[in-house]
């Protein structure tokens, strides 16, 4: 039970324990990344080389970016399976923009990409929050529809790299001091959202909704609007992902981003965001993406056949979920102890 005023400061110990557990998720992932990194480096020193580190970061950036948005949605007890398709659509539209109008300002490209994404997200959000269609279904349908629309527009065309301005390509490729701009940009965004998720009331509402939807509604939280916004942000980030995609590859075909959805969800879950909402951090999700990417790259670097990639990812995913469950059970027990009263 909670100590009466003059009782020994049980909570302090408990709190420290709790906070550490709170961070444990992120720390755990960081640790995992480090371990994978070190082990691989031992097998192949080149893995620690500047270039490959640069590749690690760049390679994880897109998924991390999408993961950040997905995290918001999942925290609110929903899911967004359409991110991959949205990325594809935005990427291609931006590509054609450059192809058809030479010398359009790069800023416009970002506006277009993000705008398209946000629009898709808004539709998802409305269908979910207003029409009350389960987000799993809504975004599954959106996955089909948006992909179909993209393919329809593309129909076998491929953006000519020549038409993508070099300055724009630098965003996706150049680096400062071995840190790719891509990674810097994504890191800034992730850290920013992570901060916002701790710091602003609407963001906290998302946690409340995911934690206990009815109580949230009772407490006067505008659940519908919040969820819509979450989907919009997820969409917008996917759209931004599209912009970065084309700036990196300078060319797009209709398959861009297909299959990302499960990859992103996997990263988010590995990153410690509870699949049923209420807890988890954007930072964790991003780290999850980095971990997955580090592993797949390590496999190649360690000259393990790429054929092992999937199996290992899958096993890791299961391990992560189980580990989460284990931790949360432990924490709950600890919290009960700290809270004291046995409740039958």
């Amino acid at each position: 039970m909670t100590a009466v005023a003059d009782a020994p400061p049980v909570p302090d110990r408990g709190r420290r324990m709790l906070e550490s557990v709170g961070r444990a998720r992120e720390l755990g992932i960081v640790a995992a990344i480090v371990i994978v990194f070190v082990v691989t480096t031992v097998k192949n020193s080149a893995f620690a080389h500047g270039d490959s580190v640069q590749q690690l970061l760049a390679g994880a950036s897109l998924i991390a970016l999408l993961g950040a948005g997905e995290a918001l949605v999942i925290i609110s007890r929903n899911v967004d399976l359409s991110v991959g398709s949205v990325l594809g659509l935005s990427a291609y539209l931006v590509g054609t923009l450059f192809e058809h109008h030479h010398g359009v300002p790069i800023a416009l490209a970002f506006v277009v990409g993000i705008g398209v994404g946000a629009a898709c997200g808004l539709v998802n959000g409305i269908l979910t929050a207003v029409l009350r269609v389960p987000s799993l279904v809504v975004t599954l349908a959106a996955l089909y529809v948006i992909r179909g629309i993209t393919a329809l527009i593309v129909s076998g065309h491929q953006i000519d790299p020549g038409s993508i301005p070099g300055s724009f390509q630098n965003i996706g490729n150049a680096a400062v001091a071995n840190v790719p701009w891509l990674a810097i940009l994504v890191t800034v965004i992730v850290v920013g959202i992570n901060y916002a998720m701790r710091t602003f009331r609407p963001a906290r509402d998302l946690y409340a909704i995911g934690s206990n939807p009815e109580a949230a509604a009772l407490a006067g939280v505008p659940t519908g609007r919040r969820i819509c916004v979450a989907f919009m942000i997820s969409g917008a980030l996917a759209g931004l992902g599209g912009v970065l995609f084309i700036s990196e590859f300078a060319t797009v075909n209709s398959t861009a981003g297909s299959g990302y959805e499960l990859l992103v969800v996997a990263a988010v879950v590995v990153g410690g965001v509870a699949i049923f909402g209420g807890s988890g951090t954007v930072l964790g999700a991003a780290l999850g993406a980095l971990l997955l990417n580090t592993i797949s790259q390590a496999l190649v670097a360690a000259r393990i056949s790429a054929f092992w990639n999937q199996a290992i990812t899958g096993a890791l995913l299961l391990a992560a979920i189980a580990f989460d469950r284990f931790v949360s059970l432990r924490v709950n027990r600890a919290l009960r102890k700290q809270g004291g009263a046995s409740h039958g």
Partner: protein
Amino acid sequence: MTPTEPAARPAAGPPAGPPMVEMRQVTKSFGAARALADGTIALSAGEAHALLGENGAGKSTLVKILAGVYQPDGGTVLIDGEPVVFAGPAASQAAGISIIYQEPTLFPDLTVAENIFLGRQPLASGRRIDHRRMYRDAAAVFARLGVTIDPRRPARGLSVADQQIVEIAKAISFNARLFVMDEPTAALTSVEVERLFEVVRTLRGQGAAVLFISHRLEEAFTICQRVTVMRDGRFVRTDPIEALTVDAIIRSMVGRDLSGLYPHTGSPVGEPVLQVDRIGRIGVFSDISFTVHAGEIVALAGLVGAGRSEVARAIFGIDKRDTGTVTVRGKRLPPGRPQVAMAAGIGFVPEDRRQQGLVMDLGVDHNVALASLHRLSRFGLIRRSSEGRLAADWGRRLQLKYDRLRNPVWTLSGGNQQKVVLGKWLSREPSLLIIDEPTRGIDVGTKAEVHRLLDELVQSGVAVLMISSELPEVLGMADRILVLHEGRLVRELSRAQADEGSVMRAATGQTEGAVA
């Protein structure tokens, strides 16, 4: 926005001047049922005021009107002498009234402080949440309540007691002046109750009013200055606590002729059906032993949270028991296996009809059949005909009022829902029926029917183990009464020995000689 101190007033008893909150002849009906016939009460700053009465006396309706959940049909509500009408909960909250429910609904994943300030978190520049200040404020509130809950810990895993404290803290942060506590101690251990009382005293000391609803009379004597008793939706009396005795209160609570209302008059007692031997569940109850014979009704009495339902569930196998044995007609039951218990002839009518008793979306027929699916099947197929017959048959025997058997049960009234649950189990012709709160939330008419039904059952040689929070029901129906107090069997009373006083005293732990 720091919680500001309510205007400090002398923490006296009944004061001069208009009461802080007053209700006069407030009435409320639901369809035909009149839930509140005369809601009258006056609450003054700095007092803790007990509202006592049996279940169905109208307490919770009165509370919900105060909370703005219901709008009264008649009568007036006054605050500081001014008549008011609460459009909704928000209005009542704005007026400084806040309700602390038995099980608060918190956000398990948010910190305690955020649970208190959700949507109202103190802001720094740029609409940023000022976490330091939020935690400081929360800590300050707790300090004022004289408790230390870590504001930074998540609400997940808080004991019910602590959850209530958090709710109270939330209320204070809303500048509440009247704290309505609906059975707050029901699920608390004595230590926690003590701490809650500390909090109540503090609140009084700071000039707030506390409306304290409880079945535990002695608690009223411990912390309340005045007592208002209600019965059958009507105001009975308001007196300073000094002017009252337990018996006096119980009399005015029960205050009606019990005989006649309850048909059961005892019946020939047969073979032992259920033998419970020193069963226990760690932290919930321990060392419970008793026997139920064919043709008798045994009641488990005690306060909410004394462990009555938990014992029943452990017997049926919903919860695993840690120690002891349960035997039904000589057959040992393994712990945690409801299927075996059912096979052995136990039927279990659970406390929570909506969550546990019925599948609300299924039809009457499917719900009645749910526990008998296999005996309704031939060659592994459910025979629709016999299923329908079973439901129709029991519908008739229980005088069930339904439109179509296929209609989902949530379309039925509480009483009829309860009949469906009974039908589900009786259709299995159990040799022992465990029935938890047989008539909770049921209109008086159906109540009587259920009681008659139970009587018929025991007459036909079925053994019944009944749990009820309603003293009159316990006294009226039971052949023997086993009184639990904080997870222990403290007293066994025969129908002859039992009266309100003896049961209440045992249930509230004022034991004069526990059972051997």
